[in-house]
């Protein structure tokens, strides 16, 4: 089968001309879609309970497994944040907590939320569930490797959690794990705790690589007939680009974890200079602590976009479906995702303006960082322009999307403060940074996750979540989270440094005590509100209303499976054939306000479709 595109034939389905059936006879070729190039893949069907639900090769089950494991780690991270806020807001009630505990909670909260919760949830959870369904594949291309990927992640989580129970406790080095303190006494958990952390991260990277190869190759090679790259839902584009970033960025983390393990266990000096400790010169010499920071942030900054890009993609789809309008500027959105992904590898040292690296780097990294603001702003404009002249359903899903826009723009703007090198100098290492990154990569992606849960739950479970509970969940979470992080920026202006176990004995900081208590109370409420979702899910599974197929009237393929919830193999006897992009909403001349991707042009001959 040749890959060449035959220009002699008229492929109406792939042109961008306006199709107007009223003009005359319908071109017999207008429904033409290129034949499949490879035969269908054989699926290994499960034969037992264990194969079906535990060591399962179905990407949908693996997605749910990833999701549940990530949510478990997320709850641990949430509890840790409560403990931190208890210490900061009401230290008299936190008498049991020492500075060691506090720093261990800070560290584990950060690492869990960024890597084990957000990354695993977006790529492992949504990626596994949605990629094959959305591109029209029966499963991931390497189902067995996919299964191994989850179980490697599971072991990584187990090792991470085990570090809570070893002598000395988990590492308290801060999630950035900056040497030399990470592996020296004086930092909590500098013995077994840090080793387990490094091992767990290495396992995570290995497991994630197996999953990531699957996501990339499935998207590139296993799309159904007619599903061109520029007809993919933006969710798939976001997850795809994030996976490519992960494949390039995680090796840097793996390398730094290996080197640090060697520094710890074999006393090598990759990151360790000559050090005087308790009057003794240690057996280290010649290493560079800043080298670690470069490696870490070469991973760490793309990591931000590994979380953000799937969120961008998913929220675009949710907004489009619930505003009943095509996503505005689809091509711009795709190029913005790809562009942001590419640029994200050239900005890492903006985390290091005051790290002691050569200060001349500042000029370069400030410029690249602010360049990223342009494609990011374009995405924001396109989201709100999608709402404009839409027909917006203000339901729970849409509320989460609107909450995302507010928090993401807020956090994006403060990012311009921090990226602009000299503005970063007074603000870095203060609570301004904490507020910024929680707003932009904590709350904003969380809003998308929640929106996605309410949106796709009917597909996964076949039942509709309660809208009333959903709205309560949203408003408490959104208003609460906003009142945690919006005022927190102002703590940073005062100059309150982050990672302080206690701090209010400084004269100019005493005015912040009231605010700190307020933030803590808000944090307790927001955390507790997440259990509304747990309750909602349990209640819905027991007594919820059965979902009809495609309850949101969406166009993308996951809603057009043979059964709801989709069975192994997804699409029954025949794979769907795709004739258009997934955003044909409210097309003039069409009977309904949506045209599924599988609808052939001849079936909706009188519509004025601009792009198919």
């Amino acid at each position, binding site marked *: 089968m040749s890959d060449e595109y035959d220009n002699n034939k008229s492929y109406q389905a792939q042109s961008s001309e306006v199709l107007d059936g009223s003009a005359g006879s319908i071109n017999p070729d207008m429904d033409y879609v290129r034949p499949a190039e490879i035969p269908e893949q054989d699926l290994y069907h499960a034969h037992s309970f264990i194969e079906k639900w535990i060591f399962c090769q179905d990407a949908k089950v693996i997605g749910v497994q990833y999701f549940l494991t990530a949510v478990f780690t997320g709850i641990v991270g949430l509890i840790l944040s409560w403990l931190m806020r208890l210490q900061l807001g009401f230290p008299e009630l936190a008498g049991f907590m020492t*500075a060691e505990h506090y*720093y261990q909670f800070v560290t584990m909260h950060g690492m869990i939320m960024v890597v084990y919760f957000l990354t695993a949830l977006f790529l492992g959870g949504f990626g596994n569930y949605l990629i094959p369904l959305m591109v029209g594949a029966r499963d991931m291309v390497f189902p067995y490797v996919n299964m191994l990927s989850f179980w490697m992640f599971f072991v990584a989580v187990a090792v991470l959690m085990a570090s809570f129970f070893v002598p000395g406790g988990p590492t308290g080095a801060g999630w950035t794990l*900056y040497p*030399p*303190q990470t592996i020296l006494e004086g*930092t909590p958990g500098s013995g077994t705790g840090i080793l387990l952390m490094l091992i767990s991260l290495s396992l995570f990277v290995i497991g994630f690589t197996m999953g990531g190869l699957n996501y990339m190759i499935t998207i590139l090679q296993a799309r159904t007939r007619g599903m061109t790259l520029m007809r993919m839902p933006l969710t798939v584009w976001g997850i795809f680009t994030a996976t490519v970033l992960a494949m390039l960025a995680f090796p840097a983390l793996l390398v730094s974890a290996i080197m640090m393990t060697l520094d710890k266990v074999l006393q090598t000096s990759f990151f360790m200079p*000559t050090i*005087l400790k*308790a*009057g003794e010169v240690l057996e280290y010499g010649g290493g*560079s*602590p*800043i080298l670690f920071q470069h490696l870490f942030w070469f991973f760490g900054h793309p990591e931000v976009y590994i979380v953000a890009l799937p969120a961008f993609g998913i929220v675009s789809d949710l907004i489009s479906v619930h*505003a009943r*309008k095509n996503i*505005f*500027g*689809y091509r711009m959105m795709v190029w913005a995702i790809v562009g942001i992904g590419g640029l994200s590898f050239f900005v890492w040292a903006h985390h290091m303006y*005051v790290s*002691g690296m050569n200060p001349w780097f*500042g*000029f370069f990294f*400030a*410029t690249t960082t*602010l360049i990223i*603001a*342009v494609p990011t*702003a*374009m995405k*924001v404009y396109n989201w*709100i322009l999608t*709402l*404009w*002249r*839409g*027909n917006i*359903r203000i339901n729970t899903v849409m509320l989460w999307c609107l909450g995302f826009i*507010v928090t993401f*723009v*807020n956090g994006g*703007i403060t990012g*311009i403060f921090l990226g602009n*090198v*000299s503005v970063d*100098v*007074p603000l870095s*290492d203060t609570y301004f940074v904490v507020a910024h990154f929680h707003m932009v990569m904590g709350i904003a992606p969380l809003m998308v996750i929640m929106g996605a849960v309410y949106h796709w739950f009917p597909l996964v479970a076949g039942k509709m979540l309660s809208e009333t509970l959903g709205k309560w969940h949203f408003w408490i979470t959104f*208003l609460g989270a906003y009142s945690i992080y919006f*005022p927190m920026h102002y*703590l940073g202006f*005062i100059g309150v*440094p982050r*990672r302080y*176990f206690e701090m209010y004995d400084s004269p*100019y900081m005493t*005015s912040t005590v009231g605010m700190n208590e307020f933030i803590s109370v808000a944090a307790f409420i927001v955390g507790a509100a997440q259990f509304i979702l747990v309750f909602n899910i349990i209640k819905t599974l027991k007594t919820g209303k059965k979902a009809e197929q495609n309850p949101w009237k969406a166009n993308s393929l996951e809603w057009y499976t043979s059964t709801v919830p989709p069975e192994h193999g997804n699409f029954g006897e025949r794979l769907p054939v795709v004739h258009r992009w997934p*955003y044909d909403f*409210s*097309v003039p001349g069409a009977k309904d*306000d949506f045209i599924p991707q599988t609808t052939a042009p001849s079936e909706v001959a009188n519509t004025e479709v601009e792009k198919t």
Partner: protein
Amino acid sequence: MHAGIIFLLVIVGSILFHIFTPWYWTDIASNWGGMDSTITLTFWVGGGVFVAVCLFMVYCIFRYSHKEDRRAEYKPEDKKLEKILTWATTLGVCALLAPGLIIWNQYVNVPKNAIEVDVMAWQWGWQYRLPGADGKLGTTQVRNIADDNPFGINPDDPFGKDDIMIESDVINLENNRPVKILLRSVDVLHNWYVPQFRSKMDAVPGTVTFYWFEPNKVGEYEVLCAEYCGVGHYAMRGGVEVQDKADYEVWLSEQETFQQLSARYEKLNVDGNKLVKK
């Protein structure tokens, strides 16, 4: 409808909070007012974009909420609009970046008349060293650090002999005279940070880093460690006292030089056992 109203209140509340907040900058006491101005500029531009985007969103909620009999507009792309928005954003970003880079250029170029201060950090404390009459600091090495040489000055370095040693976590600075802070650490990362001076930089073991500022308000200030350095991080405080020239000279004349310290130790006949830090 209530959704639109609540979102609107969030935006209005944010603006009011910003106007009436009692929590804002600690009064500046250095030359880096330009950083504050750039932050203010970023607030106007960025805050304006935030408010505009959110208000547009709220407008859409009110104007375009779902009605069964209405259809959304079908218009996949608007090249002209996208072009305008791209260029407007690029322009705004440049307007913010330019002052940022100009001030950074000042930040990395230390004035020639700046006095050098060696700030030595360890877990968990600070001490300081000033150049003596020759105006130059002697070179140092971690391995030289001992009771009779708390800064690890190379004994063979002639510039080191008259260095003034301040074995205290408080240092005095002369008002209106630029200071070049030379940072080093004997163990882990630290960061010598005075919020009123706005400036900061990490101290990195194995290398010497620097930054500069010019204090312009007489007074006492607290030094905070701004880079996580282990369990005592939050307690790693120090102090700065900014004085007028006359007071400063008096204070300076009372400090001990390296030579004097060595002589004192020789007199006490203490052998060069290594210093035990807390």
